[in-house]
């Protein structure tokens, strides 16, 4: 799966979790520039992503991610080992 294939799925997850059907997510999106992306929503996002892509993150693996772009890169690594 490529970044371009992963991104729309990630965007759908963001839309569901943040309950915003019009939300546009890009590689540069992060908790500071996306409304309602708080710490609780963050956990919901991670859990939904794990389920959607049938992957699991190791402890600490996502702490250092700066934005959605890096998130998507990590997802890609996980599903195409």
């Amino acid at each position, binding site marked *: 799966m490529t970044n371009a294939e992963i991104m729309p799925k990630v965007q759908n*997850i963001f839309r*569901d*979790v*943040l*309950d915003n059907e019009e939300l546009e997510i890009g590689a540069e999106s992060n908790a500071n520039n996306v409304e309602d992306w708080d710490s*609780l929503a963050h*956990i*919901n996002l991670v*859990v*939904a992503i794990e*389920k959607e892509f049938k992957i*699991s*993150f*190791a*402890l*600490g693996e996502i702490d250092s991610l700066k934005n959605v772009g890096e998130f998507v890169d990590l997802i890609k690594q996980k599903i195409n080992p």
Partner: protein
Amino acid sequence: MKHQLNYPFDPHYILRKKRSIKRELLKNTGLVNRRIAIIGGSTTAEIKDILELFLLKDGIKPVFYESEYGKYYEDIMFENNELDKFAPETIYIHTSSVNISNFPTIQEESDSVAQLLQKEFAKFTTLWERIEATYHCPIIQNNFELPYYRTLGNLDFSDIHGRTHFLTQLNQHFAEYARSCKNLYINDINYLASWFGLERWYDKNFWYAYKYAMNYEAIPLLTHNIASLIKASYGNSKKCLVLDLDNTLWGGIIGDDGIDAIKLGRETAEAEAYTDFQQYIKELKQRGIILAVCSKNELDNAKAGFFHPDTILKLDDFTAFQANWNPKHENIKHIAETINIGLDSLVFVDDNPAERQIVQDMIPEVAVPDIGNNVAKYIDVLDKTGYFETLSISKDDLQRNSYYTENLKRQEVEARYNNYDEFLKSLEMVAEIKAFVPVYLERIAQLTNKTNQFNLTTKRYSLAEIEAIANDTNYISIYGRLKDKFGDNGLITIIITAIKGKELHIDLWLMSCRVLKRGMEKAMLDQLVQAAHQRGITIIYGYYYKTVKNKMVSELYRDMGFECVSLAENGDSVWRYKLPEKYENQNQLIEVIT
């Protein structure tokens, strides 16, 4: 909308879509506010969010107080203005095995281990006692799930130093305490964790990263269980199970296959599964759930099934029996009328998804679990729905089925009389009407939480509140029991009134639907007036607070001779009754023992 949260549910869907689910649920009207304090030994943010959904689904709009992370002990034990001001109606204590302060070490002597156990237990009993003294509200308390690891291996279970042993003992103490304490209800996470799977339950990523004591995916299961307890405490549990027959209570179609060919008994795998399902239903009946049949069948064929040599359920297990070719939703309405309970007290079980759908669409109040079409899974689904959750099993529960069966006999007799009063006389009714006494307080509290139709104010009381009222001389509170030649109906009506100078204010007047139209309300008013006389009361005020369910008593005070003082736009009304010099009893048909 409703089915997303009905068991069996998809936990990931709920977690992912919780905001939009909540948005939709908030559109429902008639939501009742409830103040619930969540006191956590681990993170509770998501627990609060998902619990809210399960409560909203059933008409409860929770307002939450949430303790700071891990501050469950301090929040209760030390002065807490915020919680005092919040005045919780329910307190949920979310603790689990991660909150054990000290497990025994392997070097410890047995009396030191016993002390450790007592100390750990005392931590909780002091919490519960403090809540009882300060907030007088029901407590929902988690027990403990089995430990994450066993350094002693299998020995962990039997050796007194084992964590498994320690937690099991502690759970035993919790159970004993809960049996003796009326306001403490155990949320059995030990069972939930086992059912969910301990391996998945202990998701240590979530513990280390966010301090959640259990897997995120388990939170819907956990909160669904808590919601069932909260709903039960407000009397929202279901009372009656309506069952289809063919491929639900036995395998095959009795009308086509004949009684000899239906699958029941122990001979084949399928037959055995249907038999076990019948056994499950039988046990529900024994604990007080009313059973009814709703089947598309010829009546004779349907009844024949219960004469099968291996049937566990018998004809007389059912209080209502509808087998015909009418639409099922019509039959279900008929059943509710026959046994005189609300449609929202019914659960309908049918293997046929089309029938389930029609019933759900036509009567949304009826709970229609998706039991699927695999008989091996019926028990699983029905058991986990939590529809029949109860906080205690009273004598009344165990006798409930006989009350309804006796009522059917009364209905048969009634049909033979042209004059209703003549029919009532023939019942030879005897009532006992007295001031509250300790032995009945639990039943009285239960009634205040369960009764919706003949209920003038629908005020709910905890047992602690009822105890306080019973001991307060500023209240006149009476209960009524009614029996007749068909049987004893038990304690079925109460009035709670507050004395204010020369005035008496009726805070609560309710009666079980089991004894409607027997004139019992007249006998109750007679006794109330007499008690009021003795206390020098000159005027009685009655209040009617309109709900979606209590229309039947909107004119009760008028019928009883009260005059209307005010009628609000929302349908609420206030009534007044001036005590006459000489009062004549309204009741003429019931012999009253006081």
